[in-house]
Structure formats: C-alpha cells, structure tokens
C-alpha cells in the first residue's frame, strides 16, 4: 500500500515536473522554435482528446458493451481523412482574423455576432463544467483506490485533503502554464509542450499497465478474447445481437467522436488556435490516429481479465489499477494512476484556459463596451480569466462532491460530445457556404442547443435527482408522453445519446438551411462572408490592398500612432503596447515614415483589430477599434473615393470586380494544375530522352566498333594474302621436287585451314564494318522461293550430315527486291546457328516459312530448340557475342545479319511468344528509290 505522505510527495514531484517542463519549453522555444513548433509535438498535444475516460471509462464501457468503446477512437481516425481540407482552411482563417476560441470563430464568421458568441460560450460552460467534475471525480476515486490496502481498507490521515491538494495543483498549472499571458493567439509553447508530455505519460501508462495486466498477470490478448463468449453470456448486453438501434448507437458514437476531436473547445484550441504551421496537420492526420490505436490496444483484454478475476462490472473503470493492486503490485497501479492524472490534468487545464478565455472575450468584453462602469476592467482581462478558471475548477470539484458516484457524471462525456455537435453545422456551413447567414446560424444554433438541453442535458440532471423529478423523463413534459425527452414525438427504441443526436442535428441543419435561404445575408454580410471564406483558400489574393498602396501619402502618421497607443494601453501595459505596435509598424513598413496613404491607414486599422482580437476576441476588438475612429469621417470619404476611382479606372462594376477576382483566383488554380501537368509531361519526356540518349551512345559505340573492325580487317587481310600465297608456293615447290614430307604436308594443311578461318573472320568484320563495297551489288527483284532453294542447297550437305529435317513453306509467286547474296548470307547464318543449337537434341528440325503481309515479306526461321532466354537475346545482336564454344563461332553472324536487314529497311527479331526458337525477318517487298540508288549497306 502507498501511504498518503508518499502519494502527496509523488504528486508534489509530478507537479514540479510539469511546471519545470513548461518553464524549459518556453526557454527552449526562444532559442530553438522548431523543437516545440513541430508536427510531432502538435500531434501529441492533440492527445488531450484522451481524458481520464480513456484510461478508466473506456474499460468500463468495454466491460459492459464490448467494442462499442472503440467507436470513440475509430471516429477520429475516420475523420482524419478530411482533416487537411477542413483544418488547413480553419488555420488559414485563424491566421488572418486571429480569433481566440471556437466561440470567437463562430461569432467572427457570422458578421461578428455577439449573440452567437454568448450562446456558444454559454453552451460550453453548461456542457463542460460537468465534464471537468467528471475528471476530478475520476481522480478522487483513483486516489482513494491507491490508498487502500489489499483488503480494501482505507488508511487515511488527511481524508480528502489529498483531493484538495490535487485540485489546487491543477489550478496552479492552469494559471501558470495555460493562462500565462493575455494574448491567447500568441504561441504558448509551455502549454503545447506540457500537453505533449502528458500525452506521452498517459500513452506510456496505458501500454505499461496493459502489458503488465495482460501478459504478466494473465495469458495474453488471444486468451482473453477466447474467454469472452463465456463472460459475455453473463455480462454483455451489446455484443452478440445486431439490431437497428445498436447500429444507430455505433454510428452516433462514430460521428460524435469524429467531430468532437476537432470541435471540442479544448481540441479546437490545440488543433486550430495553437497551430503554428498548417503543414503540421499532414503529419497529425496519421500520427494522432496511430496514437489512439496504440493507447486502446489493451482496453478490451483488461476489461475481460477484470471480469474473469471476479471484479464487478460496476467497478470496471478501476480495473487498470484494481488488477495490479489485487496482486500487490502497487507501483504498476501508481503508473496507471499517474497516466489517469496526466489525462485529467491535460483536459482540465485546456478546458479552464479555453472557457475562461471565452468568458472574457465573448461575454465580458462586449459588456465592457456597453457599460462604461466596467471600463476599468479592460486592464484586468488576464486576472479575470484567472478568477474564472479558479471558479470553474472549484465548481467542478464541488459539483462532483454533491453528486458523488451519481450516474449523471458517467454520462457527461457523451453529453459534452453532443454539445460539441451543435457547433458542427454552423462551422462547416461557415467554412464552405457563403450564403450561410447570421440569422440562419443564430436560429440553427439556438434550435440545436434547445434540443440538446431537452433531450440530453435536462434528462441527465433529472436522473441525478438534483433539479427535476424523474417523472419528467418517464412521463414526459407536463405529463405528455409525446414530450418524453428520451422518446420525443414517439421516437423510441434508441439509446439516449443516439436519440438526442438525431433530433438536435437534424433540426439544427434544417433550421440553418431554411433560415439562410429565407433570410439570405445582405450585401455587407455577404461581402464579409466572401472575405472570410477566401481567407481559407490557399491562393488568397489581396488585390484591393495591393492597389490601395499606390495612393498618395497624405495622412500624418504621428496622430494615428498616438490613437493606436491610447487604445492598446487600455488593455495592456506600456511595454506590451510598445512591443505590439512595433510588430505592426514593421509589418506595414511604417518605421521612419511621417505620412502614409489612405490605403495604408485602412491596413493599420485592420492590423490593430486583428492584434487586439488575440486578447479580447474578434467581436470586441472590432468594436473597440471602431470606437476610436482611427479612420476619420473625412478619411473614410477619401478611402471611398480612392476605391471608387480605382475601380472606375478599371472600368468595372462591383459585380465585374468580384468576377475578376474570382477569375484571377481560378486562373491561379488553373496555372497550378497546368504546372502539375507540365511537370508530369516533363518527367515522361525526360525518360524518353534518357532512352534516346542511351540508344545514341550504343549507336556511337557500334559505329566506332565498326570502324575499328574495318581497320583491323584491312590491316590483317593484306599480310594474310601474302601468307596464303607463300604457303601455296611452298607446297607447290615441295610437291614438284618430290620433297614433301608427310609431317610438312600436315603442317601446311593446318596453316591453310587456319588461314581460311582467319579469312572467314575478316569477311565477317568487313561486312559488319560495311567496309565491303556494296555499290556494285545492286538491289534485284528475285523470287523468294528460288532464293531460298539456292541458299539452302549450299548448306544441304551439313544439314544431312547432322540428320536435321529442313522444310521450306510459302507461296511460290512472292517476289522481293533485295541484294540476294546478302540475304542468302543471313539465311545461311540463321540455319547454321540453328544446326549448332539443336545438334545435341533428340528432335532436330528447322522450318523456314515466308509469306506476304501487306507490303512486307515475313520470313521466319524456326528450329526445335526451346527458345532463347531474354538476357541472352538482349546481347546476341551485339558483335563478338557468342554462346558457342571457343573456336566454333566468331560472334559476328547475327550482328552482321541484323545490319543487312537494317540496310534493307527491315526488322530482325526473336519471337519470344513461340515455344521454340524462332527468328523473324520482316522486309519491304519494294525498296524505295533512294535506297536502291545509295551506296553500300
């Protein structure tokens, strides 16, 4: 058993570790930003999706409903397919408008609507305070469990002070790391790094605890699943039957979690507001789902082994710790506990940060604008956020104390997800449908929240017994059965989550479409919508700004700077104000200038609004900048004139201007597509050129080789002729004088054979090198049959000697224009090669076939061999390549034949589709005049 003192000490060290991480991250980020601003840290920070529910609640759901828990993690993975088109758009819009939360985003999108901002903030507070309570409850329960001995007895000296210590630590971390500065859009590297670290800790705890329970205490995953059917009969209500309502529950969980991972307020904060580079989304799209896959590997096996160990289903949420504790492994239980603590801590810190920011920016800041008595609060924004965060977390603590182990807390996870779903229609429409109007969004959001309250939130409160009577759930509102919140208008048989999901989403979507179409946005709102949507495009084209900068510099900058400084100092201290103004001045290139143009003044107005939005939200900043009248009435007039003049100079109506901008954007898109196509073509062309280049090199190589062969042939032929003459003379003299000795006769015969062999090689070389003068060898028209018969007659002796069957088939009348001697040489080469190749085979035959196909003669020489391997076939047309034994072949036959056929304008190749060895010669029957008149081969 772990004592309270030990646990408090461990927790103290843990908190110090988290704070130190934040402190180091801040320092590291200032020197090496990429160590924190990278895709891995971003993906891990998204892991704040996994709360204590993942560590403990999932096991509870697995123990009661099998793999249903998995839908909560599979949903985000499926949704990640669309992360890039949705998230990248959101990030680009955030970079332009600098909104500070999801509530600020919807307010900014829908014509800077205060109503939407307030509604969104109220929904988030209602939906997520109970969720914070659930996290604290989970921490409290697991703390008590860790302090039990093996008999379940508790030895506590300080009672619930450990819980209070934990809550105080969470508040401290929220204030020190989450709410360290007033600008929420500025990079909070400490918070991002802390969230990433907590994700690593909970992942490590889930894997370590899982491996220990599944493999050290039990017999592995396979064994657990084999035990499932027996356990399922007693404990499983979900797995094993398939009905429509279960399908609806599964689909509901998938869809809810798919959107929750992006649009839960804390997730939106990490995924969009804290994103430093949209490219990180690419990595997170697969790395984060991988994180979810790994963290869930052992959930079901742990649930099964818990049930198998005889632990009750009702306590399944503690199996990760209870199973090690049952086996006296307190340290493993402590690891599980710290994993749960990390998960809860990450969620609460992010929720506290996000909700307090929403409160100040969406509720308080507009109020300050309305009531002059509240003006003094403008410099206290950060402190107010601290107070709100403390109150929120404290409310969560007291909420769970009041409800104890009440079922309402357990259902709060899904109720929060359902609350998140109410954002989905207005966010998606806001991103992709410019005609989604402010009125449509307000009506849609209100209707969605109304249905969520009636079908999910109020029934949960009623079941807790705190607010309403349970009759409200069972009998219906005012006792009307068709107003039963979990079977509204008679829609019965669904789980409460699926039921609420169906009603709230269908009515919300329908309201948005109908109201937006019935009350379309007016011109100014539509312009704002178009501007907002175009900010999300990758190819944003600020044409107006570019042209306005060309206006004359007439406006004095000093008074404008004083105005800007005055406004910023209402919200920030002098140092922060100066830093922010310096950033803006640098960005707009104002440093050292006395006057600016009216267009640049409009830029200054926009930049101030964006900068202030990072602290107080887009709605309040718009109002605040407007109130100081940075652009005076006269300047507004000048600006309007200038814009009108510019457009007038272009000769365009506003519609034409819009079309022109669209045209430019489309043009850029087309150019992008065209560039992609050109790149692809270039790649193909480069490959072709590469092939041609290789062919050219080969051709040059062959030409050099031919030249060299011709030279050698010439140089060797002359002395060889001399040798031949001399040998003949010696032989004649010795014979005439009767002095020829048998040994001398034998030697002379050997010399003559050798000379003959060298002569054959030289003839081959001369033919190959085209050194042989073919000018005197004209093209003649001959009958193919006669040519073949005459040619074959020359080698018939060898054919008979080798016992080869040779047949010639083809039409008698086909005539061809060719150099008969050369063509005969090709046939003799092929027949000779065939005889050598089949000499050792049992079946020996050679078939010569020819036919006229169109304007060509197709002549084939096939033998009984089994074909030629591709690797040899590739080389055999090269000169001096031979597979024959040394001394038997020159390696020139096929290369010479190939050259002859090419000189006839034909093709010479091996037919690999034939099971035997088959050479194909394709020759034009009639030769063109220029070839007939040309010299040489």
């Amino acid at each position, binding site marked *: 058993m772990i004592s309270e003192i030990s646990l408090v000490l461990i927790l103290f060290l843990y908190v110090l570790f988290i704070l130190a991480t934040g402190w180091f991250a801040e320092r590291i980020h200032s020197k090496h930003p990429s160590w924190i601003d990278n895709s891995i840290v971003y993906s891990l920070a998204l892991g704040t999706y996994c709360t204590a529910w993942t560590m403990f609640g999932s096991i509870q759901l697995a123990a009661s409903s*099998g*793999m249903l828990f*998995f*839908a909560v*993690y*599979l949903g985000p*993975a*499926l949704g*990640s*397919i*669309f*992360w*890039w*088109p949705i998230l990248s758009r959101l990030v680009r819009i955030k970079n332009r408008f600098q909104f500070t939360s999801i509530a600020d985003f919807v307010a900014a999108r829908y014509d800077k609507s205060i109503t939407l901002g307030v509604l969104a903030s109220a929904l988030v507070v209602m939906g997520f305070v109970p969720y914070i309570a659930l996290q604290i409850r989970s921490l409290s329960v697991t703390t008590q469990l860790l302090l039990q001995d093996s008999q379940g007895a508790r030895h506590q000296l300080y009672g619930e002070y450990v819980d209070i210590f934990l809550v105080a630590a969470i508040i401290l971390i929220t204030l020190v790391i989450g709410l360290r500065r007033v600008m929420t859009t500025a990079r909070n590297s400490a918070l991002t790094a802390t969230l990433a670290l907590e994700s690593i800790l909970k992942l490590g705890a889930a894997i370590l605890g899982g491996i220990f329970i599944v493999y050290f205490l039990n017999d592995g*995953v*396979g064994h657990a*699943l*084999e035990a*499932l*059917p027996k356990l*399922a*009969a007693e404990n*499983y209500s979900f*797995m*094993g039957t*398939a009905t429509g309502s*279960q*399908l609806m529950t*599964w*689909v509901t969980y*998938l869809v809810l979690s798919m959107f929750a991972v992006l649009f839960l307020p804390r997730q939106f904060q990490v995924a969009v507001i804290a994103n430093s580079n949209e490219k990180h989304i*690419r*990595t997170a*799209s*697969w790395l984060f*789902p*991988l994180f*979810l*896959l790994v963290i869930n*590997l052992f959930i*079901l096996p742990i649930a099964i082994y818990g049930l198998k160990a005889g632990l009750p289903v009702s306590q399944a949420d503690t199996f990760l710790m209870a199973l090690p504790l049952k086996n006296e492994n307190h340290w493993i239980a402590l690891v599980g506990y710290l994993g749960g603590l990390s998960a809860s801590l990450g969620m609460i810190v992010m929720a506290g940060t996000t909700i307090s920011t929403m409160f100040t920016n969406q509720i308080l800041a507009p109020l300050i604008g309305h009531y002059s008595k509240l003006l003094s609060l403008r410099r206290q924004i950060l402190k107010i956020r601290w107070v709100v965060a403390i109150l929120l977390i404290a409310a969560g603590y007291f909420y769970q104390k009041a409800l104890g182990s009440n079922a309402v807390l357990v259902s709060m996870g899904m109720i929060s997800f359902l609350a998140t779903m109410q954002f989905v229609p207005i966010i998606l429409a806001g991103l992709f449908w410019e005609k989604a109007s402010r009125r449509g969004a307000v009506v849609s959001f209100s209707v969605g929240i109304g249905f969520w309250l009636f079908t999910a939130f109020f029934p949960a409160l009623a079941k807790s017994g705190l607010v309403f009577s349970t009759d409200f759930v069972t009998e219906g509102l005012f006792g009307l059965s068709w107003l039963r919140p979990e079977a509204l208008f008679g829609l019965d048989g669904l789980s409460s989550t699926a039921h609420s999901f169906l009603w709230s989403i269908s009515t919300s979507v329908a309201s948005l479409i109908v109201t937006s179409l019935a009350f379309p946005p007016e011109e100014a709102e539509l312009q704002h919508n178009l501007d907002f949507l175009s900010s999300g495009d990758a190819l944003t084209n600020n044409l107006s700004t570019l042209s306005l900068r060309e206006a004359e510099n007439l406006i004095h900058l000093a008074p404008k700077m004083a105005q800007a400084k005055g406004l910023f100092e209402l919200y920030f201290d002098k140092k922060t104000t100066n830093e922010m103004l310096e950033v803006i001045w640098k960005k707009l290139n104002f440093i050292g200038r006395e006057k600016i143009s009216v267009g640049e003044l409009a830029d200054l107005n926009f930049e101030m609004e964006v900068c202030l939005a990072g602290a107080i939200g887009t709605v309040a900043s718009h109002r605040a900048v407007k109130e100081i009248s940075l652009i005076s009435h006269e300047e507004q007039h000048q600006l309007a004139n200038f814009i009108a003049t510019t457009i007038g100079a272009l000769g365009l109506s506003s519609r034409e201007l819009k079309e022109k901008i669209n045209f430019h954007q489309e043009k850029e898109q087309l150019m992008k597509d065209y560039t*992609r196509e050109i790149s692809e073509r270039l790649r193909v062309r480069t490959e072709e050129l590469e092939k041609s280049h290789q062919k050219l090199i080969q051709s040059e190589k062959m030409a050099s080789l031919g030249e060299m062969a011709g030279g050698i042939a010439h140089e060797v032929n002359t002395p060889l002729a001399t040798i031949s003459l001399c040998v003949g003379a010696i032989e004649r003299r010795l014979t005439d004088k009767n002095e020829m000795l048998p040994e001398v006769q034998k030697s002379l015969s050997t010399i003559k054979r050798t000379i003959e062999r060298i002569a054959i090689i030289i003839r081959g070389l001369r033919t190959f090198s085209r050194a042989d003068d073919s000018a005197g060898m004209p093209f003649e028209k001959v009958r193919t049959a006669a040519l073949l018969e005459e040619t074959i007659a020359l080698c018939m002796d060898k054919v008979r000697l080798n016992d080869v069957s040779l047949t010639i088939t083809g039409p008698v009348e086909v005539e061809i224009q060719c150099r008969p001697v050369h063509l005969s040489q090709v046939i003799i080469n092929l027949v000779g090669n065939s005889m050598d190749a089949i000499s050792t085979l049992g079946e020996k035959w050679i078939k010569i076939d020819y036919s006229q196909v169109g304007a060509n003669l197709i002549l084939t020489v096939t033998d009984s061999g089994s074909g030629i391997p591709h690797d040899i076939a590739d080389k055999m047309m090269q000169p001096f390549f031979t597979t024959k034994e040394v001394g038997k072949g020159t390696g020139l036959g096929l290369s010479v034949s190939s050259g002859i056929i090419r000189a006839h304008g034909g093709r010479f190749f091996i037919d690999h589709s034939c099971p035997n060895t088959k050479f194909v010669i394709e020759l034009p029957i009639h030769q063109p005049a220029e070839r007939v008149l040309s010299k040489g081969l």
Partner: protein
Amino acid sequence: MFLHSLEVRILIFLLFFIASSWVFLTVPNLSNPKLVYFSLFGVMGAVILYVGLVQK
C-alpha cells in the same frame, strides 16, 4: 493526386465507415471475438495507412 481528391477521400471514408459498422454488427462476435477485435483494429490501421500515404 488521384488519391488526394475529395471524391476519393469520400469513397475511402464510406468504405471504412461501412466496413467497421459491418464488422461490429454482423460478424457473429460472440463465437469469434478475435475476428471482431482484430478486424476493427485492422480497419483503423488501414485508415492510418491511407491517410499517411496521401498526406506524405
């Protein structure tokens, strides 16, 4: 680029969505829980592979 298109993303999404729902509901999971368990993790793994491929 073909794999990046919105149409293909929608098709792949529907394929995995339906596959996971089919595995969960129609496989006789009581008699073969291993198949359910590994098939669902397999679907998730396949999604990760696809997204990893198109987002590379």
